[in-house]
């Protein structure tokens, strides 16, 4: 925003209200009021409005202005400023998000609608009607508006957080690289000195050998250090918190109120029924029996000794499992009348396949000479 530079241009030299010039007040700053977007210098604002609301001093404008609504102009063009304010206001209210719409078409329609409203307000067409529309919408959809606002706030703050985190990381990385560079240089330096001293002390035949060795050592050192750093970096990456999981903001909204008549095509929001408590058995009912009540002990000459067999029991053998099984098998299917049920099933099957098989059967039957 070239605001500061622009405000210092020559055309803003003079305040339209008090006619004082920049020449006399080099630090003169201008404020505007979104009621009428007239510009005046700070001192005028202080002078005229400190004691309460008053009429705008610009000739012809009789709007009542308040001191607290004066603010700095952000755009060079006052028209743009006004439009942006209007836009901001409308979008604050009509803040539906893309995911709330049934189809892309509906969302696009909504966007167009919004633009229409903004255009109307900006060009002062049907202002009253449009304002009324807006207010009505706002009143009806208070909840959804607020919810969407909350989402936006969340996104903004998380965005900020991510930005700062990334900057921090970048800084650390730069630092790490710098350090590495330093250490490497120092090592090379040290290596060189060591090399020289050894050359000086050793014989000429050793020279080549020492040279090679020195080189090798340097390489080894640098590669070792690099791999070490790599490992550290990986560990840090693993420990880094993952922001993938956004908190579950449930956009719980009233189903009916979505269609205000103003905004069309909103996805039908299902009012989530109060969630049923988690059933660990998922519908099955354990241990339900119709023929018998399972007991934890049945007297039996054959089974009782097992209750005293320490070794079997130590392994965990549980007679109750056996009781349960035998009792179940005793009665499972007692009332399954196979004859009836199977003939029913066969009848159902043949009737299903009769249509397709009938024709072929008729053909074959004729040829059957057996």
């Amino acid at each position: 925003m070239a605001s500061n530079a622009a405000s210092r241009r020559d055309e803003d030299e003079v305040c339209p209200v008090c006619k004082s010039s920049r020449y006399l007040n080099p630090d003169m700053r201008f404020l505007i009021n979104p009621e009428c977007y007239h510009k005046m210098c700070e001192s005028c604002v202080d002078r005229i409005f400190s004691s309460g609301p008053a009429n705008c001093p610009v000739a012809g404008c009789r709007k009542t202005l308040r001191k607290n609504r004066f603010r700095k102009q952000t755009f060079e063009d006052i028209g743009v400023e006004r439009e942006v304010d209007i836009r901001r206001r409308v979008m604050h209210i009509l803040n539906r998000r893309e995911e709330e719409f049934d189809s892309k078409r509906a969302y696009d329609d909504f966007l167009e609608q919004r633009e229409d409203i903004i255009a109307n307000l900006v060009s002062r067409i049907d202002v009253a009607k449009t304002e009324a529309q807006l207010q009505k919408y706002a009143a009806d959809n208070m909840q959804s508006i607020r919810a969407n606002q909350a989402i936006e706030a969340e996104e903004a703050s998380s965005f900020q957080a991510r930005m700062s985190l990334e900057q921090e990381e970048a800084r650390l990385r730069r630092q790490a690289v710098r350090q590495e560079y330093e250490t490497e240089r120092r090592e090379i330096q040290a290596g060189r000195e060591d090399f020289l001293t050894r050359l000086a002390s050793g014989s000429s035949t050793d020279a080549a050998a020492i040279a090679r060795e020195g080189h090798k050592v340097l390489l080894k050192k640098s590669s070792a250090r690099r791999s070490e750093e790599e490992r550290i970096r990986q560990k840090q990456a693993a420990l880094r918190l993952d922001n993938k999981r956004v908190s579950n903001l449930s956009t719980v909204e009233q189903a009916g109120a979505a269609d205000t008549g103003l905004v069309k095509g909103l996805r039908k929001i299902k009012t989530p029924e109060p969630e049923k408590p988690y059933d660990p058995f998922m519908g099955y009912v354990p241990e339900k029996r119709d023929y018998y009540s399972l007991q934890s002990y049945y007297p039996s000459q054959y089974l009782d000794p097992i209750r005293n067999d320490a070794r079997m029991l130590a392994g965990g053998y549980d007679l109750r499992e056996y009781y349960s099984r035998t009792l179940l098998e005793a009665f499972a299917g007692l009332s399954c009348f196979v004859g009836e049920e199977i003939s029913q099933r066969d009848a159902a099957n043949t009737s299903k396949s009769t249509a397709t098989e009938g024709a072929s059967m008729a053909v074959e039957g004729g040829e059957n000479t057996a």
Partner: protein
Amino acid sequence: MIEDDIYRASSQYRLWSYTEPSLQSLRATTNAVASERVRAALRRSCEAHQSTATSAAGTPLPESNMEVKNKDEKDVECLTPEEELVLVRYYCEKTLELGETYKPPIPTMVRATAIQYLRRFYLTNSPMTYHPKSIMACALFVATKTDNYYISLRQFADGIPGDTTTEDVIAPEFLLMQGLRFTFDVRHPFRGLEGGVLELQAIAQGQGQPAPHLPYETAEDLQQGLLSIAPPPVPSSSMSDRIARAHGTTRELLKSAAQMTDAYFLYTPSQIWFSAFLLADRPLAEFLLDVKLAPETDENGLVNPLYEIRSKLHHVLTECSALLQSYTPLSSDPAQMKSLKRIAKKLYHCQNPEKVNLAAAQKRESTQPSTAVQSDAGIVTSESETERLAKKRKLEQEQKVRQEDDVFGPELVTQRTKQ
């Protein structure tokens, strides 16, 4: 009822339950298809023979040639479904005996599973196509695998009297499994019987609990009820004793009659053991039914909604007990044994030659994968193969003549009275 629904989810209920008529028609169809197959195969083999005989110079087997030709002259007489059933029944009994020969003997339930496998297999296959002798041993082996009683094939084959090899035992395995449609779980009535007995004993000792829908009964009521039932067929010293006796008798019935009849296809395991129990000690069984399903009218004289079930059940159980009662072991009935011999002889002539030697077929298959082997157990029959088969049959016939006693070759196990 919940327990019934649990049973309805089992593969036994879904795939292996039939009505009497559907069972009959299924067997008839299988028999018919197999008969056609056999006739066609015999015709083919005989034709192949003739061409071999005429083309080759020194025919090794003029007699077999003649034999085959003769057979072709008159139409091959195939087994009827009833005869097939008798045959299968005989082999089921043999399975029990085979299980006995092992040390320690193979558990009852494993043997019962094997028997059911046999019966199920022969619903959709015919003894003419696959001789029960070869399938029986395999069924028992597969049963040991599926019923948590694993013994190695070698051990198993060694335990079979006679010279059965491991290949012989394992050759029909895949076929058997396919015939079972890969459903290996068989629900037996034995554990159910145990459960029923547990309940009765508990009631007898005053520790019984009423059924969930009859909460007003107390343990004492139940005990009283139990002790006041009609006397048993065989007198015993105490109620516990009586229950134990009934337990034993029922178990024997389940081991034999339940396995050898079509009970598993027509009734559920709990109905089977209840019917057997009815035969062993009627008043006791009826008491238990009353306790579980309530008598005709309850205390207040109102008709019990479960009564309809009760009467249907009564009907079903009567049928089933009749079925169980009608069974007599083949070995004990000379008339049946004679008919069996006749059937066996008949089978000898109408065996499908193309499916006879499964073990050899498998071996051949594994060593010559390149030759266009047809799918499923060696249906390939080349001319030389047919010749070989014919030779084998001649040898077998000679062998048979040597042992006039039993058509099935050496007896698997000497006849023993079951105890």
